[in-house]
């Protein structure tokens, strides 16, 4: 898929960086134009915009955020999500609503198919494996999407990222952001092991992400 960059993209990226005052630390890898799956903690609607905006322009042009269809599918939000951010909108909670195991598997497969198709051979993804926004104090359990996607594309680098303070900038249920300073840390890429089971992999991925938290020191 060719990356068509919307003229608003760099403007919105600059606005997002301005509001979030984001300081970016590449602690475990360098920004590169290779195919990756960035997975991060989730506390605010601004998370994916900030992470996307923090990437260098040429990397950003080939990186697509994964966002919830129910929130981003209407009006201006839909325009921004689809045309500017080139977000991949997915139906969330499909596996939880499913009546039995088979239906859950089928729902997960549909989502993973959609993500793999969106990546193609060139694009990277931004993913929030917790699925829903937390309070910022703890990281919630990971959903299984990351595991199935990693299984499907085992050669793609999985880069953990940790966003701090976004829950204070725009918490759940608020409309106006407070422009405080945030910190975004990218960790060392991980890969799924050939024989690794779902639970073990998700715990390892969660630990790799949580380890990036600054824990009060500066």
């Amino acid at each position, binding site marked *: 898929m060719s990356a068509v960059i919307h003229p608003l993209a760099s403007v919105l990226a600059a606005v997002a960086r301005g509001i979030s005052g984001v300081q970016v630390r590449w602690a475990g890898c360098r920004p590169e134009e290779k195919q990756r799956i960035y997975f991060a903690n989730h506390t605010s609607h601004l998370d994916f915009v900030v992470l996307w905006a923090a990437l260098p322009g040429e990397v950003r042009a080939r990186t697509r955020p994964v966002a919830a269809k129910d929130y981003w599918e209407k009006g201006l939000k839909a325009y921004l999500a689809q045309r500017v951010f080139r977000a991949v909108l997915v139906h969330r909670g499909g596996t939880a609503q499913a009546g039995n195991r088979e239906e859950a598997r089928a729902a997960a497969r549909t989502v993973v198919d959609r993500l793999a198709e969106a990546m193609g051979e060139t694009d990277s993804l931004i993913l929030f494996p917790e699925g829903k926004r937390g309070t910022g104090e703890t990281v919630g359990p990971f959903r299984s999407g990351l595991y199935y996607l990693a299984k499907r594309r085992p050669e793609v680098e999985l880069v953990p990222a940790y966003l701090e303070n976004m829950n204070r900038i725009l*918490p759940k249920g608020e409309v106006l952001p407070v422009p*405080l300073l945030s910190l975004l840390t990218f960790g060392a890429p991980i890969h799924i092991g050939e024989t690794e089971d779902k639970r073990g992999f998700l715990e390892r991925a969660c630990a790799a992400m949580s380890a990036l938290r600054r824990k009060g020191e*500066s």
Partner: protein
Amino acid sequence: MSTGSPGYFPQRVATTRWVPHVEDTQLAWLFGGVLGVLVLASAIGAVLKQTAKNDAAHATINNLNARTRAWWKMCAIFALTLLIGRIGSLVLFGLLSLLALREYITLIPTRRGDHRTLVWSFFVITPLQYYLIAIRWYGFFAIMIPAVAFLFIPTRIAMAGDTEHFLERAAKIQFGIMICSYCLSHAPALLILRIPGFVGHDARLLFYLVLVDQSSDVLQYVWGRLTGRHKIAAQVSPNKTWEGFVGGVLMATALGTALWWATPFTPLQAAGTSLVIGLLGFAGGLVMSAIKRDVGVKDFGAIIEGHGGILDRIDSLCFAAPIFFHLVRYFFAA
């Protein structure tokens, strides 16, 4: 000075409200002086870079040169906004207030229930404070934050319904707005004072305050590095010594006295006000250092290369500005 005494252009009355200051010869001399110091500092830095022998010396000199480069940028921005006129300075200091407040609030613990109060602080209270200067409403400018916002903040937090650490949260937000918005706003408020015989030259007064204050910071640092032995409050800041404090403040006072011709002051009055600026600047640096130690950080931010955050650079100005403003207002303004 060959450019004439302060009364040389006494009748040049501002004809428009937002008069640019381009024709002010004495302001041009002040700009020129700062430019000379920057050129000198860059030249010395370049020479030292060539002569540095080991890695440690290289690191020190690179930091020094980064600081000098940042000073070039800061001086350019300040000079440019001063030339644009009052609006330029108000926008600059308004943005500095917001950036400083952002650095401060980021470091202090607030809770979910403070969100709306913070929205008010950033988007209503701080801009309103600068708007009041723009419309020259001194009476409301003086009381809006200490009286109105002071009462509004705890009320708004209480309405959010979270009582955990209530008093600390309210007090910490109030302190931040007082320092970052209220105190700092007194610097550009100098531009609305009407001083007999000084009309149209108010930009010089703001330049004088910032120059003496920031010079005092630099001189205290240099003096402390060269001669500092006895720490004033080792727990708060290991870099603040009695030698640096006395030497730096006296040198800044000497500088301020030597620049009396650009102000409405006599040389003796210039000495007194510069001394006050130096002392208050020291107090500002000390208090803000104590806050940094309390929350366990070295700097408030990293926006200015080699210096840290905005608040690290302007902490002294936040303390010096209101006192300088009221000294000038009480003794010199009509």
